[in-house]
């Protein structure tokens, strides 16, 4: 079991004297950092990597999955720039986080994503065209065909953390052996909702894993202005729950920590917070211009640490990946994404009455006339 916020509570601790103040230590905590593969694509210790990381096909699959998200993001950006897409938040540089924890989830687990969550969403069965539809202005983008229980994106920041605890409570009450994953940005951890969610997850021992995508920016606000904490993982201490900080650009670390946390949660071991340190290598969204606030050099440095290239280096170092493989994969992914884009672009706009038809199970009498008015107006 992954247990990183060790705490020792002992009423009988020996009093310590510090100056004139009598102080007994009653609780101790530490936050640990987890990384396997460094930015050169090398496993950093002589330690045995987790089992999945010893299977080269698994790593190849993860590599492909990360690339898929990046290709999708690029495509969505291009669509937005040509007026065919709404505001879109890319996850460039953070693909290891969503793909990593998404691949730790079973079909039965429930995902309660945040808005920059396309990596985990796709990994857990949300269709790429659904992601495009959502940001492209179609409610039906949230009517997931495969990921039937997953929540739609929560735009109001941090609210999803609480919804995740509710889903986890239902799972717990029903005695099911599954768990909930929910993601949040490091900026989002400043919201009270995040903390309230951690607290209830802790006291009720809920089967939920909180992933913090620490991409070091909340739009223009850097992490250094967000909190005085050295780590975001330590926020879990406030709720008495386990946490760990991982290299969010190392998909092996993200997946390993997530696997363990999920297993723990499914088996009644309660919640875990996993802080994944990464960097947002793109603008906040298509509506943002990060050159207004990003310090010089940050991007250059960031690109040397990002998750995709390091995995490629590793695969190449094992002679498991060639430039032909790369070309083929990118072609295949481009085709996959293009298919999703085509489906998206071919989706007809809903008729005006669609504004009303899912508001309640049954539309109130009073609103029926409005619906008809909308249809009449729309027909003009």
């Amino acid at each position, binding site marked *: 079991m992954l247990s990183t916020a060790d705490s020792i509570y002992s009423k009988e601790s020996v009093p310590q004297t510090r100056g004139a103040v009598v102080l007994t230590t009653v609780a101790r905590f530490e936050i640990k950092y987890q990384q396997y593969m460094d930015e050169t694509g090398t496993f950093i210790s002589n330690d045995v990597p987790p089992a999945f990381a010893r299977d080269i096909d698994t790593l190849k699959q993860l590599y492909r999955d990360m690339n898929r998200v990046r290709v999708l993001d690029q495509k969505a950006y291009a669509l937005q720039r040509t007026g065919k897409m709404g505001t879109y938040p890319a996850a460039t540089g953070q693909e290891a986080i969503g793909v990593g924890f998404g691949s730790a989830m079973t079909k039965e687990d*429930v995902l*309660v994503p945040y808005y920059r969550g396309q990596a985990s969403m796709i990994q857990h069965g949300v269709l790429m065209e659904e992601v495009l539809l959502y940001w492209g202005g179609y*409610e*039906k983008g*949230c*009517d*997931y065909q495969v990921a*039937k*229980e997953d*929540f*739609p994106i*929560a*735009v*109001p920041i941090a*609210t999803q*953390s*609480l*919804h*995740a*605890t*509710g*889903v*986890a*409570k*239902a*799972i717990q*009450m029903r005695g099911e052996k599954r768990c909930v994953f929910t993601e949040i940005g490091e900026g989002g951890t400043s919201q*009270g*909702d995040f903390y*309230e*969610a951690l*607290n*209830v997850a802790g*006291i009720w021992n809920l089967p939920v894993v909180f992933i913090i995508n620490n991409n070091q920016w909340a739009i223009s606000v850097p992490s250094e202005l967000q909190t005085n904490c050295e780590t975001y993982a330590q926020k879990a201490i406030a709720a008495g729950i386990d946490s760990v900080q991982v290299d969010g650009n190392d998909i092996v670390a993200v997946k390993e920590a997530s696997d363990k946390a999920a297993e723990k949660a499914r088996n009644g071991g309660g919640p875990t917070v996993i802080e994944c340190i990464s960097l947002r290598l793109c603008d906040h969204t298509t509506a943002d211009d990060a050159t207004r606030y990003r310090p010089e050099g940050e991007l250059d440095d960031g690109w040397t640490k990002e998750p995709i290239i390091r995995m490629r280096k590793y695969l190449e170092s094992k002679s498991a990946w060639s430039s032909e493989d790369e070309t083929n994969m990118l072609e295949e992914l481009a085709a996959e994404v293009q298919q999703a884009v085509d489906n998206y672009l071919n989706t007809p706009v809903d008729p005006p009455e669609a504004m009303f038809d*899912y*508001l*309640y*199970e049954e539309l*109130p*009498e*009073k*609103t029926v006339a409005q619906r008809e008015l909308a249809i009449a107006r729309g027909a003009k």
Partner: protein
Amino acid sequence: MAAITLIEAVNKAIAYEMEADKEVVVFGEDVGINGGVFRATDGLQEKFGEERVIDTPLAEAMIAGLAIGMAAQGMKPIAEIQFMGFIFPAADHIISHCARMRNRTRGRLTLPMVIRAPYGGGIHAPENHSESTEAIFAHIPGLKVVMPSNPSRAYGLMLAAIRDPDPVIFLEPKRVYRIEKHEIEDNGEEYPLGMCFVDREGTDITLVSWGAMLHETKQAAEKLAAEGISAEVIDVATVSPLDIDTILESVEKTGRICIVQEAPKSGAIGSEIAAEIAEKGIMNLLAPIGRVSGYDTVIPYYRLEKQYMPKIEHIIEEVKRIVEYR
């Protein structure tokens, strides 16, 4: 068949449905062993166990957020907010999520949940314990806002609220929690949501109210009858979505209307009722639309509370003004 109070009716309806439907769960602050600060959930934990009647940590956003997550999983949470004045930390979840989940997922995820809260003044409570801010939630499409006025309706409407496939904000008139008893057969029969109740037929004027204020309104109607003024009394019961048709029909008959509400006057439920009549029933009006209302000020601490609350004589006075209007 026992005669029970409004709060007992709430309790009985919840118990009935918990018995009938294993997915119904109750949670909130102090709802467990304490049975709620007003005892609305009295005995439920003993009966249904700590797993289904749950004391939460002290956080209203969390209570609403939990309910959303559980409801999305098909459970039927009944979440208590201890006083309506403490619902605001949950406003974001209620407005941005509860009201919208069905719509945004095109019906994939629905939220069959109830948020209960005692509302209103008149019980000498401390600050922030007397709010009547139903208008805030009534303005939000996707919600239903129900305010029962008596024990039978509390029982029937609560059952309907729990069974409703969409989120219901259920506001209980705490001032009349124990003011009258009704003989209620505990048979699980619900009253329909979204419908006004005509409590008294009349021909001279229509009196419209809901929740606790129905009591003053009905008493005013009685006194008016003694003076020869025949008032029709309508209990709105579901303040959103509004069953305006019943009110319009009544006004068509009486030609005059007075709305009685406890909330501050501006932008309250009474405004919407008046606006609808001004739009659709104005040709039937023989006089201006009257509103007897709380004032546009913060409900005062308890020493002045009585000065704030609309009273029977205010209704009578306003009705006479309207009836005498030429």
